[in-house]
């Protein structure tokens, strides 16, 4: 694996971790406010789940170096 590819994988991992932890925290916040009487455990549960999912994705990414990742390119309006 070249250095640039390794750097891109780390970038992807960090972005994925930020999004997943944030999403888990957000969902935990919504459920804490709506159903669980503003307790703290849904936030911790959601954030932990997001962190675990991000870690699992990173692990698969680093252990399968031959899988190609696509890029999303915006369409240019002419």
């Amino acid at each position: 694996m070249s250095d640039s590819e390794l750097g891109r994988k780390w970038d992807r991992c960090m972005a994925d971790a930020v999004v997943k932890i944030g999403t888990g925290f957000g969902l935990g916040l919504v459920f804490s406010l709506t159903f669980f009487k503003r307790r703290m455990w849904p936030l911790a549960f959601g954030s932990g789940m997001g962190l675990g999912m991000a870690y699992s994705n990173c692990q698969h990414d680093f252990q399968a170096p031959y899988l190609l990742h696509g890029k999303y390119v915006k369409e240019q309006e002419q």
Partner: protein
Amino acid sequence: PRPRVPGATRDVQGAPRAARDPARHKTGFLIKGSVAGGAVYLVYDQELLGPSDKSQAVLQRAEEVVPPAMYQLSQYVCEQTGLKMPQLPAPPKFNFHFRDTWNSGILTVMSALSVAPSKAREYSRDGWEYLKERIK
């Protein structure tokens, strides 16, 4: 009557609050269910908990959309309230690219650590020779 405890689901007579006003309780439950269901659907629709490629794309989209939206919101608030937002000075621009130099920085630090014992031995031997020369 028993004292009122904050967060209790029963009133002082012991009846559940839901039994006192079932219509209001059902409406509240529907609203909460809708909000929670909407949040879950939003996460599913945007694939926020999906593969890492999609998460990276979502983050890039958010980086493009959020700052202009925040700026427009602040402009709207200033227009409506008549307040003036303080103009912050532009952040200083550095010509140092941290991400590009991180790898070479790590390599430099690690090579310095690996030669540190031999260099320390060499410098201490040179220092000892120098002291011996001075004492003679």
